[in-house]
């Protein structure tokens, strides 16, 4: 699993004009890794299962278990999958560069949302869904 900083670099990279399919695969994989960070921070092992053919959706479901407000990124995960399909099913489409760029923006939103939750130290209130993790972290401090 790449670090959050490495993942941010992936999302900040300009969309390539060649090897579109590989770029879409990497964005999907990087999105999975973002949720792996969340799941791991909760002390769980990231699932290898798939839902509707995608591990990302299974990981989201795992991340939301016991924390319904994590569903704030459910649609974002589904949009990542939608754009992955859009890119990979029509790689010759005239709008392919824009479609890949949009997949990158949607993936980056997932990254920003979840990485923000994980920045416990010095962050203060991130949002309602970060509270359980922050509380657990604070209770472990001496």
């Amino acid at each position, binding site marked *: 699993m790449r670090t959050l900083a490495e993942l941010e670099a992936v999302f900040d990279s300009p969309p390539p004009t060649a090897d579109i399919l590989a770029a879409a695969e990497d964005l999907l994989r990087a999105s999975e890794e973002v949720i792996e960070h969340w799941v791991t921070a909760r002390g769980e092992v990231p699932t290898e299962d798939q839902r509707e053919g995608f591990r990302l959706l299974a990981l989201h479901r795992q991340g939301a278990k016991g924390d319904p407000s994590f569903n704030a990124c459910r649609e974002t995960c589904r949009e990542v999958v939608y754009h992955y399909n859009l890119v990979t099913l029509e790689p010759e489409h005239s709008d392919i560069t824009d479609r890949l760029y949009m997949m990158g*923006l949607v993936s980056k939103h997932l990254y920003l949302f979840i990485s923000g939750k994980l920045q416990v130290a010095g962050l*203060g209130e991130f*949002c309602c869904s970060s509270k359980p993790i922050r509380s657990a972290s604070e209770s472990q401090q001496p």
Partner: protein
Amino acid sequence: MTTKDKYKKVAYYPGCALEGSGHSYNRSTKAVGKALGLDLVEVKNWNCCGAMEVKNIDPKIQTYLSSRVMSTAANEMDMDVVMAPCNGCYHNLKKAEYDLANDTESAEVVDRLSKKAGHKTYESGQVETIHALDWIKEAIGEDGLAARVKNSLSGIKVANYYGCMYTRPRHIFPEKDQGPGSESTSKPHFMDDLLAAAGAENVDFPLKTACCGGAHTLSDSDMSTKLVLNILKAAKLSGADVIATECPTCHSGLEMHQIRAEKTLGETVDIKILYFTQLLGMALGLKAKKVGVHENINDSIKFLKERGLG
């Protein structure tokens, strides 16, 4: 009484934001209501809904604060419906309604605090809480709106941005996801429907319910700026001229961080940001000033004039 008739006269709960940074939303909501012949009766002596701040400290105090608003509407004003245009207020009143119906401990706390404060305890089900989108969609409908349009929004491409609190969590919105005609929690469309009825062209916008970073705009402004910048870029890439909003927190966040992104990240995204009520108001023939466009931070007056609006 039909829903359409019931929504023609509602208790109006503007909430704190609409008296401050979201004043143009307040102005435009009232102006649209008047233009459509709908009656808004402001909740007497209303208080904060508890917002995020109180909820993070003690959720039951938030439930009480929201219940007091509903109690006033039901017991002191004899109203059946409370309309809250702010997503935060709308969400909190719905959450309080759910908690009071399903959590005995919350009901006991609310009863104790209500007695201490000297007002009647709100009983679950006394009022129905709706959003401004429900209000116009149900009381007027797309056909009714289309028939009243004087200045079509034709030619304006809109990305409808609903934010994260309008549909989440699903269980506090039992009226949503009820099939044709009802709002969807995964793909909300009421704002799309209303603006399309007024002639606008809605674009396919993948971040319509994504987080704007509003809850941490003070504690981590850089993260909020990045989230907003991403939303602005995605809307622009979708082909939109305008982002339509229905939440004062989202709206002011988009406006302020649009500027902050320019200053701190050197990234400029040229896109207009308007409340859906401002767009509807101008479609109904109201002047831009009447719907508070001059109160927005994002300057869209030239853009609107070029399209014969306002």
